[in-house]
């Protein structure tokens, strides 16, 4: 019963938000909030995690925008949702989903999608993103970002699923490349081509995680610049930065360390190639003081500002 209630409310929110142009094509709200997009274009924000919510609410630090994990605000009410309602008055928000399981062969979870739609209608985020991965199969969820076999079948499947999500939300989403620790022998498409082709075919934007590109380049032995060269610049709508840990021969995307020097260097090359893009610092394990994240964001901001200067 509660699920039905959610879906009804979410559907109402959608009909209010979906705009129709003279040509009859559905105009995504992302288009109508392009002022926000422009404001974010060269701005480095921070991923807001629960240990920092109280501080950010009371001190309102000068961070240009915030990103949160969508699912943590799916609740019907309560303190988390109230905090987000409060923060959105001062900060543009990005909703970053970790549980849509876009690449799963299971049917799309409509209740999950309805909760995301309800949240998006409530907080009017500047950006909505999901991961290029799957999280469960046969009704069993693993609540982690699991690797896809990069095949034509998987590509067609993810393209269709991104379309379903975009139609339900009434806006374009961004899809993020993930760190992986194994590749399927069945794969026929390099990851960078898969990512680029997904954006071309589905119309989604890309959330390019530069740390994940570095991690995968080491774990799978490819040239990260070849990856960047394959990505269409006009599809890159956001960039993520985070820290990894080394475990034996592998790099693990723990989000538990500062951004590594080689990732900063790759980021600078990405910005030189794509132009300034909204950039976000993520930290999820052994989360330090907020000031540490703010300093990481300032480092990214300096690289973004340099690229502006060069463009001029």
């Amino acid at each position: 019963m509660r699920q039905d209630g959610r879906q009804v409310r979410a559907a109402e929110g959608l009909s209010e938000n979906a705009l129709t142009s003279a040509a009859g094509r559905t105009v995504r709200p992302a288009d109508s909030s392009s002022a926000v997009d422009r404001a974010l274009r060269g701005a480095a924000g921070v991923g807001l995690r629960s240990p920092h919510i109280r501080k950010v609410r009371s001190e309102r630090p000068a961070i240009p925008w915030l990103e949160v994990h969508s699912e943590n605000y799916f609740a019907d009410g309560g303190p988390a949702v109230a905090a987000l309602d409060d923060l959105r008055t001062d900060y543009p928000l990005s909703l970053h989903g970790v549980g849509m399981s876009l690449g799963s062969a299971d049917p799309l979870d409509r209740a999950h999608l309805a909760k995301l739609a309800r949240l998006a209608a409530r907080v009017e985020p500047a950006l909505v993103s999901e991961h290029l991965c799957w999280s469960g199969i046969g009704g069993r969820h693993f609540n982690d970002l699991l690797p896809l076999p990069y095949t034509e079948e998987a590509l067609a499947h993810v393209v269709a699923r991104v379309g379903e999500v975009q139609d339900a939300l009434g806006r374009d989403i961004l899809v993020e490349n993930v760190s992986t620790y194994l590749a399927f022998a069945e794969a026929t498409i390099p990851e960078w081509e898969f990512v680029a082709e997904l954006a071309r075919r589905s119309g989604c934007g890309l959330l390019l995680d530069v740390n994940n590109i570095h991690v995968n380049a080491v774990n799978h032995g490819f040239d990260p610049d070849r990856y960047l060269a394959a990505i269409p610049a006009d599809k890159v709508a956001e960039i993520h930065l985070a820290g990894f840990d080394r475990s034996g021969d592998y790099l693990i995307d723990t989000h538990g360390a500062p951004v590594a020097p080689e990732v900063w260097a790759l980021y600078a090359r990405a910005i030189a190639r794509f132009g300034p893009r909204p950039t976000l610092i993520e930290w999820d394990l052994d989360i330090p003081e907020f000031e540490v994240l703010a300093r990481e964001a300032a480092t990214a901001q300096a690289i973004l500002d340099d690229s502006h200067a060069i463009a001029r």
Partner: protein
Amino acid sequence: MPSLAELQQRFADALYAPEGAIPAFAVAGAAPAPERMDIYRRAIFANYRKALAATYPAIRQIVGDAAFAAAVNAYVRAQPSASGDLNDYGDTFGAFLAEHPPLAALRYLPDVARLEWAIDEVNRAADDAPAPERVLEALAAVAPEHLAGIGLRLSARCRLVSSAYPILEIWQARASDETGAPADAAAAMLAVRRDPDGIVIERLPGDAFAWLAALASGATLARAIDAAQRADAAFDLGRTLHSQIGNGTIAAIVEG
């Protein structure tokens, strides 16, 4: 070539296989597949341990990190998550602990877990602002001959938890109850409620708890009074009604 669904199924089965096990799908290149699979195996269980430790801090402190980790690992295999939202996971952890041999001797543990899940749930419940005056007005407007047949709806911000063990004290002390024996037959009859300034846990008399529990399960006022009087023949309806409307536990009347 195996389909996407087949590959994902094989990957899923490999995730729950022991560390070092060879997955039933081919990995690209000369990569050692078990070693690579282990990275995922370790990551998912660590993720669940962290999530459930956040929901069940008292359980973790009572049993210690190692026993808690073992319990979560077993729980995940026995009752996998059915939702892409990790916040939905863990509602049956208490019931699982009752059947989990290493901890089954701690008989109070499942009830402490149910208390912690209730706290988690009310923290995510809808924000129906308490409006006692409105409920009292609506109640006054019911014709006397219809009163017995109405129901009373409890706020989404409220859960009832009872136990034969002193779980409130255990939860507050976050330490093991060495005896494991019930303190008395009605050791804990609790209402967990989210008020505007935070979580409140109210200890209720047996009759008031029986009355609210009956109403929560959809009973009419008359049947709820019967249930309360079975707990205590001296049940004071007027006083209980006013206090439970006043504190926002009763959110609305339901016409019979």
